[in-house]
């Protein structure tokens, strides 16, 4: 165990960065209305979780978490593809990517 003085190289520093990234992504998902930026904020949150998984994987010296991160990246790629094509289709119908325009289900 190292002392708490090694703040930069310690693993909890990476956990801190990952938490902060997740928070920034969540705040972005709540404040922005552009659908593409929303999708980007979701990617940011996914990356924060990936960073945390890699951190714990390094600590426990266990490769399973890194395989899980690999699969997360695969699913994120598929999700971005389908999400962007849905955005393109929605833009064709309403000529807008404001998320508040798409509330027809409410009525």
């Amino acid at each position, binding site marked *: 165990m190292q002392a708490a003085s090694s703040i930069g190289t310690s693993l909890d520093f990476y956990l801190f*960065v990952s938490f902060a990234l997740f928070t920034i992504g969540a705040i972005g998902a709540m404040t922005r209305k552009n659908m593409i930026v929303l999708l980007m904020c979701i990617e940011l949150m996914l990356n924060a979780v990936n960073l945390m998984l890699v951190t714990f994987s390094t600590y426990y010296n266990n490769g399973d978490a890194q395989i899980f991160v690999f699969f997360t990246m695969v699913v994120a790629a598929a999700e*971005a593809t389908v999400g962007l*094509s849905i955005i393109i289709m929605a833009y064709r119908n309403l000529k807008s*990517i404001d998320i508040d325009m798409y509330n027809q289900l409410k009525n």
Partner: protein
Amino acid sequence: MSLQIISIILGSLTLASALMVVLSKHPVRSVIYLVVTFFFITSMYIMMNAQFLAIVNMIVYAGAIMVLFLFVLMLLNLNKEVEPMTTRGAQLAAFIAGGSLFLVLITALKDTLILGQSYRDNDSQIGLVKELGNLLFSKYIVAFELTSILFIAAMVGAILLAKREKQIIE
């Protein structure tokens, strides 16, 4: 000592560029800052000796996904005037909610076992391509094969959704 300084600089640059993703008004700038963020996250993977994930993150995220975002953004022909923004009250509420979330997460971190543990302590070799390849093609071979089906489904879905139809709505 110098390693600590590098880590802290990388971490703060990651957070700064992530903040710029959220704060910048123009969507194209957001994409560029997101690419920068992914580069810094890749560098953090390298610091933790997760070489395979660093390469994959660089190629898949900073390369493929971000180019896809940029293409779609260019395709939609947006400008700054039509960029929708939330009201001040909603932004304040979002910042309060996000800050509370961050507080809860940090409080959870306070009691973890690994506080103060350095990643240099056990000199992890698990992130190398050889180790992960052995794991991926033995224990996780079924999941690996299933991702190909997922990709085919995503590709077909994307083509079907983005194809120009004869006005479905009317």
